[in-house]
């Protein structure tokens, strides 16, 4: 339906170009409400609690965590994979949907890309903390050194991760900023000349004027960065899955991991985008831009990727049985019916069963209902990583070394602290930067605004009711009639 020439509008409220500018600049240059200050103070407090727990870990040592000789990494790597996955929706929306010319992405790409960047920051914290001596993190780089010039191990997926995550962060940041420059210029020209805001936005917008040549280059760069980001986003989570898949542990050593992880990442990312966008559209009053149409489309993606993940769970079980490997079979039975059965079934219910409600259009178009389901998706995808990591480790090759794992308050505080960090960054973003890509939204106004697309659509619906459609609206009829 989204490729039809005349379709339901993506921007409602009879917007004009000026109205779009007004709507997006008002929350930036106007005063923030007391609610923003209270919320930001709270999330910043949570963030500092997390930083405190990180400082405690570094001061006392990794012994403050619940890890033991058998389960050597658990909560930190779970959180790392969880946060990296959250980021993937942003790149999918901005890059892959750009290549597929999906116009509905334009209302949500800015915020989703911002979430990518913030999520990667949260993710990057965990491997660095787990080193125990984060000041030696530069040992991961291929630098000349005094250890007999012993280089880094290029056979190790952990090293590939270093390159993948840092490239992902850099490219996402550049892609995001490329799109921001014209919108920052828009804010600059609305600010009072000579004011502090004008000075800051002048500095940030790099002297953008919007000349024809600048826009031509802008579009060339956006397209190439989208083309680069598309394989990049698939590679990042594939490489994250290699951390497990290249090992020899039952439950990890499977070839299905890369596609399974990528689908899961997009699933969890859309879960988080839905959670935050439903709040953002409510708080910043952007319901004309992030319409029910958008929530509907995102819910469909969530349903599709959720079922891919569910299919991967089934495949894993089938292959465990079909392989005839005794250990492989045991580890999967242990996942579902062993001491961590509750985490396995939390994962399956949140990721596979609960999103099935999105088959119903009415439910997909009810924002608060979708919001609640998106929370379940977030929880389910966190449990997926916990299940993969902990259940494969806790019963290893010698029965005498079987152990249980439970996180300590330090680990939990660090994890909750990263939510504080993520939300604080998001709140600052929503306050000081345009949350919707203004220039791109303006460029689709005449094809997707309700006073244009909507009128033709309404006219067509009215004529159809009367039984005679004028030739001018024929394209709409072609698009409306399903091809058999």
């Amino acid at each position, binding site marked *: 339906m989204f490729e039809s020439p005349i379709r339901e509008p993506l921007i409602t409220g009879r917007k004009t170009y000026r109205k779009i500018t007004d709507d997006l600049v008002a929350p930036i240059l106007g005063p923030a409400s007391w609610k923003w200050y209270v919320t930001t103070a709270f999330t910043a407090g949570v963030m500092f609690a997390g930083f405190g727990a990180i400082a405690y870990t570094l001061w006392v040592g990794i012994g403050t965590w619940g890890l033991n000789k058998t389960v050597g990494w658990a909560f930190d790597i779970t959180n790392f994979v969880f946060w990296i996955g959250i980021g993937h929706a942003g790149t999918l929306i901005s890059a892959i949907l750009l290549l597929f010319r999906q116009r509905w992405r334009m209302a949500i790409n800015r915020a989703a890309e911002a979430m990518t960047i913030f999520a990667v920051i949260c993710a990057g914290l965990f491997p660095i903390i787990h080193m125990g001596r984060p000041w030696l993190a530069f040992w991961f780089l*291929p630098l000349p050194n005094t250890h007999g010039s012993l280089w880094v191990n*290029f056979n190790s*997926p952990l090293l590939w991760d270093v390159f993948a995550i840092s490239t992902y962060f850099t490219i996402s940041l550049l892609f995001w900023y490329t799109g921001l420059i014209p919108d920052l210029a828009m804010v600059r020209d609305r600010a009072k000349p000579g004011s502090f805001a004008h000075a800051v936005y002048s500095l940030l917008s790099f002297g953008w004027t919007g000349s*024809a040549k*600048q826009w*031509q280059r802008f579009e060339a*760069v956006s397209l190439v960065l989208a083309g680069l980001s598309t394989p990049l986003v698939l590679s990042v989570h594939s490489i994250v899955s290699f951390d497990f898949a290249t090992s020899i542990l039952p439950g990890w050593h499977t070839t299905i991991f890369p596609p399974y992880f990528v689908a899961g990442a997009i699933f969890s990312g859309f879960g988080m985008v839905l959670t935050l966008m439903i709040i953002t559209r409510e708080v910043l009053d952007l319901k004309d831009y992030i319409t029910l149409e958008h929530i509907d489309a995102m819910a469909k993606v969530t349903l599709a990727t959720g079922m891919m993940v569910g299919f991967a769970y089934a495949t894993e079980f089938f292959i465990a049985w079909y392989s005839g490997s005794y250990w492989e079979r045991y580890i999967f039975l242990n996942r579902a019916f062993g001491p961590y059965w509750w985490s396995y079934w939390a994962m399956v219910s949140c990721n596979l069963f609960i999103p099935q409600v999105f088959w119903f259009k009415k439910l997909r178009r009810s924002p608060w209902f979708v919001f609640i389901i998106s929370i379940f998706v977030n929880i389910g995808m966190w449990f997926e990583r916990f299940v993969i990591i902990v259940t494969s480790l806790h019963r290893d090759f010698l029965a005498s070394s079987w152990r249980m794992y439970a996180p300590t308050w330090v680990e939990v505080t660090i994890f909750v602290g990263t939510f504080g960090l993520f939300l604080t960054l998001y709140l600052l973003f929503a306050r000081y930067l345009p949350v919707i890509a203004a220039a791109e939204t*303006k460029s689709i106004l005449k094809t997707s605004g309700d006073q244009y697309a909507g009128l033709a659509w309404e006219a067509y619906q009215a004529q159809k009711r009367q039984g005679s459609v004028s030739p001018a609206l024929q394209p709409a009829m072609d698009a409306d009639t399903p091809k058999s």
Partner: protein
Amino acid sequence: MPKYLIGLYDDEDKLLAAVETFRKEHVPIHEVCTPFPVHGLDHALHLKKSRLPDAAFVYGALGTLTALSMQIYMYTIDWPVNIGGKSNLPFPSFIPITFELTVLFAGVLMFLSYLFVNRLYPGRKALIYDPRQTDDAMVIAISDERAWDTARSLFQKTGAIEAKIVER
């Protein structure tokens, strides 16, 4: 300070038609500024295709070469480590980093080239003919004073909402 005659338009279709008219009448257009990318404007102005994508390919190739030569030098030539007799030239293991550095070089260098050719940098003063050019109006600027009289009548004819002389 140079003076410009500017015309403001509130509709991209009118703007495109106006650009065509100006070209037909041989009125030299100094610059066209729009608040959003207008499709077909680069064709109407006969702008040359951007070579940034070609540059990105070269940058990417540079990244591929850098990554491969770095890994082969470090792992195979400079300090080959015997890990259980495994190969010192494990080509498949080199692929992920080679891919990542290809993307990194292409993306970062292309972004920097983009800023460079557009002369965009922090602290640059923007040449704004009218504050509405980043908001809701499209601006055609004429710098050649000899063409102003023709231009003024063309602005009127092509439906400009406003025409004025600005000093920038």
